[in-house]
């Protein structure tokens, strides 16, 4: 019984499962308005924080956020990075700017792209505004906004980022 056995180093068992993913009731309300070009945050009934995109709960308090707040498309740079290397399967060619942005009237940031700017001049506290795709291309996605471009407004001091009113920044 000394027949040499072929070493088994791997077996192939491809598995493919199909799911009907649902984003959630609150995200669905957000996405429905987003398709109409409206940015809708949700306010926590306890701590009053406004979340966008909303997920249905205030993670800090653990309660549903059902109070909806329409927000403008102006935001402040909370943090950013300049991507200098090509990312596999990403159609965007480097160098490009990825930024953490807080919309006026919101209390948490989301990630989006910045363009129409000098990458070396991008900075924390910088004011930006959304550049939207043409209306006929709008769908249930955050890339209805192509990117954010700088605004000619005074910078927001770091300690005020994330606490601006819906009416924006007076400087």
């Amino acid at each position, binding site marked *: 019984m000394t027949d040499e056995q072929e070493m088994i180093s791997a*077996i192939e*068992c491809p*598995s493919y*499962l*199909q*799911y*009907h*993913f*649902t*984003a*959630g*009731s*609150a*995200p*669905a309300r957000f996405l429905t308005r987003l398709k109409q070009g409206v940015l809708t945050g949700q306010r926590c009934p306890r701590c009053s924080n406004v979340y966008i995109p909303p*997920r*249905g*709960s*205030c*993670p*800090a*308090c*653990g*309660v*549903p956020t059902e109070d909806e707040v329409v927000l403008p498309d102006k935001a402040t740079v909370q943090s950013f990075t300049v991507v200098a290397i090509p990312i596999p399967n990403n159609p965007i060619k480097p160098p490009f700017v990825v930024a953490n942005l807080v919309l006026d009237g919101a209390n948490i940031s989301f990630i989006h792209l910045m363009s129409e700017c000098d990458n070396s001049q991008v900075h924390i506290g910088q004011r930006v505004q959304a550049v939207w795709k043409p209306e006929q291309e709008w769908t249930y996605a955050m890339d209805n906004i192509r990117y954010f471009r700088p605004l000619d407004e005074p910078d927001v001091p770091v300690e005020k980022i994330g606490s601006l009113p819906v009416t924006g920044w007076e400087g």
Partner: protein
Amino acid sequence: MQEVAIVAFSQSDCLARAGAANEVELIMPQLQAVFGQVGLNNAQDVDFVCSGSCDYLQGAAFAFVSGVDALGAVPPIKESHVEMDAAWALYEAILKIRMGHAESALIYGFAKSSSGELPIVLSQQLDPYYLAPLWVDSVSLAAMQARLLLEQGLASERDMAEVVARSRRNALANPHARLSGKLSVEELLAQEMFVAPLRKADCAPVADGAAAMIICTAAKAREWGVPYALLSGIDHRIETHNLGMRDLTDSVSTRLAAEGAGLAGGVVEVAELYAPFSHQEIILSRALGLGEETVINPSGGVLAGNLMMASGLSRVGEVFRRIVDGGVSRGVAHATSGPCLQHNLVAVLESA
């Protein structure tokens, strides 16, 4: 060792499909309900949190982490998770309390299993080398188990239909049930085969939803001033994943767990058994040695509605409710996991 008390329980309706709701939206109402029963604000007011869910059902790695959004975890809390039914999250929380690491704990289980094709999804949880590539689904495995019972004369199709008829009848009093009603054994036997020898009615209807529970030391329960039941014993045992090595007509692991939990120490007035298939209730009743004096599945059990990853915890909750509200003094709750009753947990509850 600390005496463990159950002070609050809530479960959602068993919905065939929860619509647009995501998992966090399924969990929050149940957490709010149990916090309300005790008078707590959120998870900051308990010492430990443990949840049970299965990422396979959501089809996303680490999907359970999103559940934390329902807790109010700012500032950070002590939190843990089991990739199982939340009955095992309860077990972990009990260990924490018995070791003196916590005085109170929140436990919750949740699933939106309607997102995928559950029997097929579960087939991929099995032994990855020999079984998963065959895609043997959970219903087919249960059907093979039922066939063994029938062929060996250990149960009849009529016995199985009687389990279903009683479940549907009991579920008339359960507002969360998905299936309830008056069906005769003859009507059930007249239904066509689904996966022979199982008819559709022999299989628990899968449901989306969540359940939550708060436990604590008996001293803490008295401090909170809420009615409570004592969890006097709990144990769980698992059998080999090799189905061919198991006696599928018996549940040795359930019997051992019952011994470990001290089930034999008194009369069992009520039993809530997690039997997703009618013949499995027969196996479990025998393994637990339940007789005439025990009311089995007064809620209708999971044949009336099966909240994946929460039904085990709900069995404990159903017994708790009957002790606190219904004058029952001692009962047993059972939870199962894996194909053909592979892994079983037994908890004994007593009035305070």
